[in-house]
Structures are given as structure tokens and as C-alpha cells.
């Protein structure tokens, strides 16, 4: 249904919205810009004002009329309202302070405070498109963020057609404007025509509001035609005629084929890596998750706040920096926004709003940068092309994926120096597949990803090495202590696919832990896995993980210290162990695991599972390549940093992948083009 609304009718409309219990959020002038903020009513709108935009420049100007929506776009879209820049996820009640080390959790409470629902007023077509993009991020995958979902679902949306697009807009390129399409997600759509509005109803909620206004004039066909066809079309035609366009055709492939383009270096000389572009962009979603645990507080909070791929923290992984250079950070932004996004969420991450151009303090223009690369792509080099993955499907998790449960440590087994296996009892039924991981945490130090190294009855095993604050605290836990647990997350070893094949498992150091579940399965089922070989390397005989268990799998091997007798005779399993160095008396192999690989006749037709430190994985793959093993026969686990583990924080991005949900177990061909590559 459509109707005509005078300025006064519009004022009454907003009053109604308020009375219906919504908090009004609309455009209003603040600090010399038109921003979305709380408004009391129509009077707070920037009536008679417009904005002028250029790269790195934004100014307000009086229009000389009474246009309510006569401006284009402010610095930030409704992303701010739907995913606040700082947001508490959960509150954790803390146990007493201990002599040293972090406190343990005693209770977890959801932190979502349900305020008034929001009425978002004045959203443009590109902003609705951006919301659709964010919907895909926060609610479209296997995990749903209930905070976003709830705000989004409750929000009333009053959209506005753009009849006078701004200088930096290029929504016709991205097919996201300038008119608000009939099918878009709005409750009411306004088209501002001189002193009145045309209103189009998009939902029952919208209809009720319009009904509440009493008798309204209905627009004539000629008026509708003037507004929708002439107004919007004219705006679109004007945009089409402009120089600033973004050619999306084949863009992901183009960008990933040009990872070494000289333009990135040239950009690095201009870009300040300030992060402004990402925080004004209406589709970016990266954030950090941190613990707020002041000494004196009885509760700690797990808080998320906006982050950006331009910060040091974003690509810092426990002391290592994976994107130290500005060129790599700009490349991340552009290849994600315009490239990987398409394979991750089925849509480009750009809606053509031009904000990143206006609000870049040095006026860098993303459309110009793309055009420069498109105009002179570098010839494909020898480097393996980066494959753009199909969207992955990890098992969905019901409920709030950021809300941890309190699990109890049932027992602690000391495996090696500074390495323990925590047997943890989760609440309720817990099923996982070998290769998956949990986020284990303590409120004072935060959460870290730890693989599930086995399941014994109702207990989940986690084998942890103390390397830093969080892992050290976990290793120090005692039976009876509680910890926070979220999971299981991530991809698993492809056990079903391995059936009937000869399997070779290559592990280094603690890399055996994520493989143990899979190995146990294969050891127990000779009928499914006719031959299983484990090549395992560790620093020294004392650093061999699960030594007793390994011995039980293959009775023919002997290495000091030989302890437990074999419990399981499994002729189909063969174990080879090598160490970097050993005391005299050791009769096993000494040398790196790759040397061991050269020693054992490995088949080009077997299936391979590889886990260990990244550097080891790379050397192992090189060796497999020489043997002639095809990339689709090899799976490996990439254990990089994570924050959310559910594909929402953006921290674990590895080229086009989220390691947390596309991985950690990847088939080699999926990431072959990225391994060892600078800046990834």
C-alpha cells in the first residue's frame, strides 16, 4: 500500500513510533556531520541541510529548502546500533582470589540487556543492503549471534529513497541503490518529493503505523511514476554516467591473482593503516574479545569491541605478527571486502556507499585502487593460485555460541614437562568429531582454542602445553576446578573419506594431540582402515607425547622409556618415531620427521593426515610433493589464533578462509596457495 504524507503527517508518524515503544534513531547534526543518533522527533532531523563529500573531505551545507532527508550518508551506518562498538557478551562470577594465578569461574550469566526496540529512520538502499550483508555474517551461518539477531528482528526500519546521490556514491556498480527496492527489508519506505513524502508499506508493523495516522491521501499513478520511475531512475542514470564505478565482474579472482601487485606497495606509502575505512564501512564486522577482570570486581566480563584488519592486534597471534606491513593490511581489507567476502557470504562486502573514501584521512579511494589493479594486472606468477573456497558447513550450535558453559576438571594427567591432559566434564550431552577443538578459558586470562585429544566416557580430554598466560593457567588447574568451555568448533579429520585407504599420519610435538582421537578410531577399526602408519617426531624421547599409548598401538616398536605393556594388539598399525636428539641408550631414530619420511617407503596413493607446528607442516608437504602425493590426498590442521571460533570476529582469517570454521583441518589444495606466503 502507498500513501502521501505531509511534513506534519511525518511528524505524527514519528510520534506514533515513539508511542509504540521504539527508541528513535535517526539522522541528526552532531559535531558538524549528520550522524545516526537518538532523536526525539522530526525536529531533530537535519532539515534543510545537506552534505558535500570528496575523498578525505566532508562538509555540511544549507540547502535553502525544508528537505528532511536532503543529505546522503553520515560517517557510520546503523551497524553502530546493531553491533555496538563495545559490548559485554557474558558476565562471569569469580571464585576467590588465589595465591597466584587466575581466579576460576563460578557462574556465567548472559549480559544482553533488552532495551527498547530501535526505530531506524532514514536508512538508504545501500544501508539496507549492508544490513543484509551483516545478517549473513551474524545470523546466516551455522552460528547465530543472538544479540544481533534480537536487535535486528525488533528494529523498525523506515527507509528513504536516494534521489540526489552523493558525490562518492557508486551503488549502481554494486547494485544496491539508489532506490529502495520493493523486496528490501523495511517497514516503511519514504520517497521525499518537495514538501511531502510518498510512503510505501513493507510490513504489517508498517501498515499498523500508517493506519494509526487516520485518513491519508493516496498518490496518483502519475505521482508514483514521478517518484519511483523518474526520480529513482534519474538518480540511477546519473550514477551510471559517473566516472567512479566499481567493476565487480570477476573481482575476487582478479584480486587473488594479484597478491603481489606493485600497487599494494604504492598504497602502503599512502595508507596510514588507521583503520578508519573499516570502522566506517557498514559491512565490516571484525572485533576483539577481551576479559575485563579488575582485581576488586566479583565478576569479570567478556567484552567484544570493534577491531580492524589495520591494527597490529588483529593479525597478532601469540607474539607473532602475520601482517606486519601496511601493504599486507590494505591487501587484507580489499581482498576480503571485494574478494573473499563473495565466497564466504555469497555477496560482495561493498555496497557502494563511499564512506571509506570520504572518511579516509588521506582520501584513498577504493574504486581507484581497484581500477588501477584491473588496468594493469600482473602476469600470473609461479606461485600457486589461491583457491576461493566454497562456503563451508560446520555443525551448527544451538544457542549463543559465545556463552560458555562451566565445565569441571575431573582429573589432570601430567604428560610431559609443562604439558598436561585435562579431563573435563561438560554439562549435558557433548558430541564431537576428532580434529575439532574447544575454547577453554578462565575469566582472568581469557579463552584459547584447544583441540579435543580424546573422549573417555563423558569426559573430554584436552592436552595443553603451557606457553603463555592462558595456557599456563589452564595447565595449573586441579581436579575439581571449573573452567569455561565453548565448543566443539571447527572441521574434523575426514575419517569417513579415509575408509578403505592406507593412511599415513605425520605428527610433530604436541601435534599428536589433535590426531589422537582419529588414531584411536583407526586403531580400533582395522576393517575400515587396512593400514595405518604413524610417523611421529618430537624434540627428545622425554618429549614424546602419549608414549604408552603409542606403544600399545604397535607392539613391534621399542623406545626408551618403555613403560606400559601393550594393551591393544593391532597389526594394521605401524608406528615410527624420531627425535631431534637423545641421550645414549636411545635406539630409535634421530633426525627430523622429514628425514624419517625419506627413510620409510611412503606411497603416493595413501591418504595423509598432518599436524604439528606450521613450519613442520610446510616441510612435510614439500616432502610429500617429491613423493608425488596429490594435494587432494592430504589433510592438515592449521592452528592459528582465534577469538570467537564461530566466524564472526574475523581474527582467524587466512586468505579467504576462516580457520575457525573452514578449518582447522583443511585439505591441502584448499590452502596450498597460501602456505608460507608473506602476509598471510
Amino acid at each position, binding site marked *: 500500500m502507498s500513501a502521501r504524507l505531509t511534513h506534519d503527517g511525518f511528524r505524527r508518524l514519528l510520534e506514533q513510533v515513539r508511542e509504540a515503544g521504539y527508541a528513535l534513531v535517526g539522522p541528526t547534526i552532531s559535531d558538524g556531520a549528520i550522524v545516526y543518533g537518538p532523536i526525539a522527533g522530526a525536529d531533530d532531523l537535519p532539515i534543510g541541510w545537506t552534505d558535500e563529500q570528496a575523498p*578525505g573531505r566532508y562538509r555540511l551545507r544549507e540547502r535553502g529548502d525544508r528537505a528532511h532527508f536532503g543529505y546522503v550518508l553520515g560517517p557510520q551506518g546503523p551497524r553502530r546500533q546493531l553491533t555496538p562498538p563495545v559490548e559485554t557478551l557474558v558476565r562471569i562470577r569469580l571464585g576467590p582470589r588465589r*595465591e597466584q594465578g587466575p581466579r576460576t569461574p563460578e557462574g556465567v550469566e548472559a549480559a544482553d540487556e533488552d532495551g527498547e526496540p530501535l526505530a531506524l529512520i532514514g536508512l538508504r538502499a545501500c544501508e539496507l543492503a549492508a544490513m543484509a550483508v551483516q545478517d549473513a555474517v551474524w545470523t546466516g551461518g551455522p552460528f547465530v549471534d543472538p544479540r544481533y539477531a534480537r536487535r535486528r528482528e525488533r528494529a523498525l526500519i523506515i527507509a528513504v529513497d536516494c534521489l540526489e546521490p552523493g558525490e562518492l556514491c557508486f551503488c549502481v556498480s554494486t547494485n544496491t541503490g539508489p532506490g529502495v527496492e520493493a523486496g528490501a527489508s523495511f517497514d516503511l519506505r519514504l520517497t521525499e518529493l518537495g514538501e511531502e513524502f510518498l510512503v510505501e508499506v513493507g510490513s504489517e508493523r508498517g501498515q499498523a503505523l500508517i493506519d494509526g495516522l487516520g485518513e491519508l491521501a493516496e498518490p496518483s499513478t502519475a505521482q508514483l511514476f514521478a517518484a519511483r520511475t523518474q526520480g529513482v531512475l534519474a538518480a540511477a542514470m546519473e550514477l551510471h554516467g559517473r566516472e567512479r564505478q566499481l567493476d565487480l565482474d570477476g573481482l575476487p579472482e582478479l584480486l587473488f591473482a594479484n597478491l603481489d601487485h606493485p600497487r599494494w606497495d604504492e598504497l602502503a606509502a599512502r595508507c*596510514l593503516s*588507521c583503520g578508519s575505512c573499516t570502522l566506517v564501512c557498514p559491512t565490516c564486522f571484525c572485533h576483539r574479545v577481551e*576479559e575485563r577482570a*579488575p582485581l576488586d570486581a566479583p565478576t569479570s566480563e567478556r567484552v567484544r569491541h570493534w577491531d580492524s584488519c589495520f591494527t597490529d592486534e588483529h593479525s597478532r597471534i601469540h607474539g607473532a605478527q602475520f601482517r606486519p606491513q601496511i601493504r599486507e593490511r590494505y591487501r587484507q581489507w580489499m581482498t576480503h571486502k571485494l574478494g573473499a567476502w563473495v565466497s564466504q557470504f555469497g555477496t560482495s562486502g561493498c555496497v557502494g556507499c563511499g564512506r571509506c573514501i570520504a*572518511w579516509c*584521512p*588521506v582520501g584513498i579511494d577504493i574504486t581507484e585502487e581497484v581500477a588501477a589493479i584491473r588496468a594493469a594486472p600482473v602476469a600470473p606468477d609461479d606461485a600457486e593460485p589461491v583457491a576461493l573456497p566454497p562456503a563451508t558447513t560446520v555443525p551448527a550450535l544451538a544457542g549463543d555460541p559465545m556463552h560458555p558453559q562451566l565445565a569441571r576438571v575431573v582429573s589432570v594427567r601430567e604428560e610431559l614437562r609443562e604439558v598436561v591432559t585435562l579431563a573435563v566434564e561438560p554439562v549435558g550431552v557433548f558430541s564431537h568429531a576428532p580434529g575439532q577443538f574447544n575454547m577453554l578459558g578462565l575469566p582472568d586470562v581469557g579463552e584459547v582454542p584447544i583441540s579435543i585429544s580424546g573422549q573417555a566416557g563423558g569426559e573430554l580430554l584436552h592436552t595443553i602445553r603451557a606457553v603463555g598466560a592462558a595456557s599456563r593457567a589452564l595447565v595449573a588447574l586441579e581436579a575439581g576446578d571449573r573452567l569455561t568451555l565453548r565448543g566443539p568448533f571447527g572441521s574434523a579429520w575426514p575419517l569417513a573419506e579415509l575408509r578403505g585407504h592406507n593412511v599415513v599420519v605425520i605428527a610433530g610435538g604436541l601435534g599428536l594431540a589433535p590426531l589422537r582421537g582419529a588414531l584411536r578410531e583407526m586403531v580400533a577399526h582395522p576393517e575400515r582402515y587396512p593400514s595405518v602408519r604413524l610417523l611421529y617426531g618430537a624434540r627428545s624421547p622425554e618429549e614424546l607425547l602419549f608414549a604408552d599409548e603409542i606403544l600399545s598401538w604397535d607392539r613391534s616398536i621399542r623406545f626408551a622409556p618403555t613403560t606400559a605393556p601393550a594393551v591393544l594388539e593391532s597389526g594394521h598399525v605401524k608406528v615410527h618415531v624420531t627425535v631431534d636428539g637423545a641421550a645414549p641408550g636411545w635406539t630409535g631414530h634421530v633426525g627430523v620427521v622429514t628425514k624419517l619420511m625419506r627413510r620409510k617407503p611412503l606411497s603416493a596413493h595413501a591418504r595423509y593426515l598432518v599436524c604439528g607446528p606450521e613450519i613442520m607442516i610446510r616441510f612435510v608437504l614439500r616432502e610429500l610433493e617429491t613423493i608425488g602425493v596429490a594435494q587432494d590426498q592430504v589433510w592438515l590442521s592449521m592452528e592459528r589464533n582465534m577469538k570467537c571460533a564461530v566466524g564472526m570476529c574475523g581474527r582467524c582469517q587466512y586468505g579467504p578462509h576462516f580457520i575457525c570454521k573452514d578449518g582447522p583441518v583443511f585439505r591441502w589444495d584448499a590452502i596450498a596457495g597460501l602456505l608460507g606466503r608473506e602476509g598471510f
Partner: protein
Amino acid sequence: MAARPRLGVFKLASCDGCQLTLLDLEDELLAIAAAVDIVHFPEASSDMDPHGRFDLTLVEGSVSTPAQLDELRAIRAQSRTLVAIGACATAGGVQALRNFADHREYVRAVYATPAYIETLAQVTPIAAHVRVDFELRGCPIDKGQLLELISATLVGRRPDIADESVCMACKRAGQVCVTVAHGQPCLGPVTHAGCGALCPRFSRGCFGCYGPRERANTEALADHMQAEGVSAASLVRRFRLFTGWSEAFRAESERHDD
């Protein structure tokens, strides 16, 4: 029961502003005092034991005399975690500005001055002399960050104090960019966050109190400012404030100073 952690607070050449921040923590300080033994706290008390080992040591101020250098080395030797707090300790502070003058004199009389005297003729941040585990930036430091630093260090976690641009703080706060919307020169893009975007909130460009962030691309920012009409002399002044002696800002101001 194991001894409670000892928190040491020391002051070299500075204005005391940062220690005042610690005092300003009032309520929180009580919690800190309940959890740790605060030792050698010249601003709060004068008769505390300055000797022995410290689990966490906060050092305020820059090094400008040989005595301070000796004191600093002794402090380092007694400290498990040593944190430099404030612009003076992390970048030399305002007093380091005289280095620019000394620097030129030094060039003129290269052989006239014994090098070791020259070293102390310069005001230097403490990281120039001893290993520093963490730098808490600011002039003065931020109360919330100080509290986070102490809480985090005492449980062995890395403090949640990100080395990122002031722009990040502006954008999170919903602060409109003063450069883009008002044409104000602003050091925010190259400056370490932590102040909560104080100056932009008052419609002023950032003065760089917290010093350079990692990867501070000062050259690109200065070039852009110059293209927008900021004079070389003004650029020198901008980069030569509280943290003007930090490497990135010093190099940038020198680039425009001739």
C-alpha cells in the same frame, strides 16, 4: 601462604602527574592495596622500604642525570616486570625537547664533548637504558589503563591495551573525524590510542600525547597535511610535543626542520 606480590613505584625526572593518576584511583587503589604490597611510593608515603624484589614496578619519568641512571639500573635488577609509565618514561617527555637544541650543538662541537656526558645531556626514555616489559603511554597516563595494567600483570595476562591509532577510538566513540569534517590537522592516525580520543572530542586535532603507534606512517600523514596547506614549521611543532623525542616523531620533525 606465599608473600603478597610487591608493587614498586619509582619516579625519575617528571612532573608527578602519572603518580597522581595512581593516587587518583581511590577506590580501586584500596583493592590494589588489598591484593599487593605497595612499596616505595614517594607520593603516598615516604617511609616505605625501597629494597627487595618487586613483582611489578612502575617507573615514571625520564632519565636526565647520572644518578637517575644508576637508580634505574638498580630498580631493573630488582624487578620481575618493569613498566614505564607516561610520556616521560616512554618517550622522554617535554623535557626531551631540549635534546633537539643539544643535538645541534653536538653536531657543531662533535669532538669537544665526551660522549658519556653527552648521553646524559640528553633526556631519554628508560627503554634507552634498561629492558622494559611494557610501556604504558600517555601524558598523563589513563586511569583505566593503569588499573588494567596492574590487574592483568598480577594474574599474568597481557594487558588489554591495544597499540592502535586514535582513529580506532574516535570511531568506536562515534566521534566525527575532525580532519575530514573540519579540515583540522590531526596526529590521530599515527598516534597510540589510550586517551579515549580526548582532543577530537573537543573538536581539536590529536597532539600525539601517547606517542607513535606501531607502523606509524608519519611520512604519509605529513605529506598529506602539507598538501592541505600545513607549513613545514607547523609540522615540526606538531611532531615535537610531549613525545617528540620518540623515534618516529623525531624522524618526522627532523624531515621538515631545515
